[in-house]
């Protein structure tokens, strides 16, 4: 991913925070990512990846996350800096406060 300079988990400092980013339009539900990194990637009822986007910090889980990215045949999974926000901003719309009649 262009937003990321260097390769996470290798050249980056061990404490640098990264997170998984899924491109939903590319995900075809192969499901290999979930085998490689089960603690971060679950599969929904149709087999498409559901990614835990909280920062990955420990070296072992970063390694597994990287394997998951590499394994994706569709190239849908990326590791990005934890503070990097994807466009469009509407995607992470906060949950509405309930207004009752």
């Amino acid at each position, binding site marked *: 991913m*262009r*937003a990321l300079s260097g390769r996470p988990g290798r050249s980056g400092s061990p404490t640098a925070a990264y997170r998984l980013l899924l491109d939903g*339009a590319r*995900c075809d539900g192969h499901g290999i990512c979930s085998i490689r990194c089960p603690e971060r990637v679950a599969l929904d009822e149709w087999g498409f990846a559901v990614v835990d986007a909280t920062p990955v910090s420990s070296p072992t889980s970063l390694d597994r996350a990287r394997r998951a990215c590499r394994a994706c045949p569709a190239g849908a999974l990326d590791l990005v800096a934890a503070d990097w926000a994807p*466009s469009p901003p509407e995607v*992470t719309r906060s949950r509405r406060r309930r*207004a009752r009649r």
Partner: protein
Amino acid sequence: MTAPLLDAVGTTRARRPAFGVAGDAVARLLSGPDARSGPESYESHLARLGPPGHHGRRPDELRALVRDSGVLGRGGGEFPIARKLDLAATTLGTPVVVVNASEGEPASRKDAVLVGLRPHLVLDGAEAVASAVGADEILVYVHRERTAMCRSLERALLERRISDLDAVPARLVDGPDRYVAGEASAVVRFLSGGPAAPRRSALTPAASGVRNRPTVLSNAETYAHVALAARFGAQWFAEAGSPGCPGSTLVTLAGDVAVPGTVVEVVGPTTFSDALEACGGLVRPPQAVLVGGYEGSWLGGSVAWSAPLDRHALGHSGVRLGCGLVAVLAEERCGIAETARIVRWLAGETAGQCGPCALGLPAIASLLGALADGRARRSDVREIHRLAASVRGRGACGHPTGVSEVVESALDTFSEELHRHVRGRACHASGAGLPLPLAAAEGSRR
């Protein structure tokens, strides 16, 4: 509370805008000649408002002016336009300016009315933005099916080409008439030669948009506001609207109002009741109001009635004014059936790129349909909630999240009807043949 400063533009069912003006002096975007006289000519536009505000101003001055005026994007994203200008101006490459006049929201009419009556205001704004960022091209993204809009723009562009004032070349681009085709990344992709389908990109269009050039892309109404701010200054601009969202706002009244598709320019402090009484012909709170578009939020009628019709104040309570749609649901209608119809349509509008959207939305739609027909159990309602939560935030664009939003708010707002439906009682309004409030707008798209 000060007196509501409203300005109404009624639109007839024949899709021809007609004026019903109250207090012409306070209208901003829609002030000027009568709607029956059609698109305002360049001559009359210049005579009424004076020369465009960006003439004789340096790019950085213009950007500072737009920043000070605090114009927010009016397509639904509510993003400060100044941030797009600053990013596009400082990124390497020659920027492009894109005016999104596709108005894919079925019941919304505000862009059609604005572009249909005041095309030069929108184009002035686009030119101001172009000179603020140093763009060499303006693209106006429209649907050819919207003939009144296209004719108005074509005539306006011709008038500007003939006059000496035209600085930046502008042209119309005809996009496909699909709901997701108006989404920013889909517009960028289409204008770059690809399909009009959303794409998740690492960079915003302002940094890398149409053919990887810095691209300022916003809704037509946003540019009209920029044109006014450039002419009359940031201080004047902020006299309308609220500190959180300066400037006036165009709102479309749809559904069970006197004339569906009435466009209202909200200038001063206004509540839903002010607008709906003055321009929608309502005398008491309706059953419910759908705010912000088909992917917006349902609000109970009595809650909405006293609520401020203000982007910023609504945003505080978690409701987005979005594209400015206010669709009214009368007491005799069924909100569950209505939502089921809307969601069925929205599910069909998926670009089909992302699994959760392509598979999840039809699943939600069929469960909602069963619920509306009284064939659903309580477990099905739980399933709807679960599916709505599971598609939220996924996919390349906000489409699944938006559907999740409207479904959750419907189940919440129409909880009484929900219980009736779950018990299998015939819905008092779910029978076929009822004139559905939003059917006219939906039918006219195809």
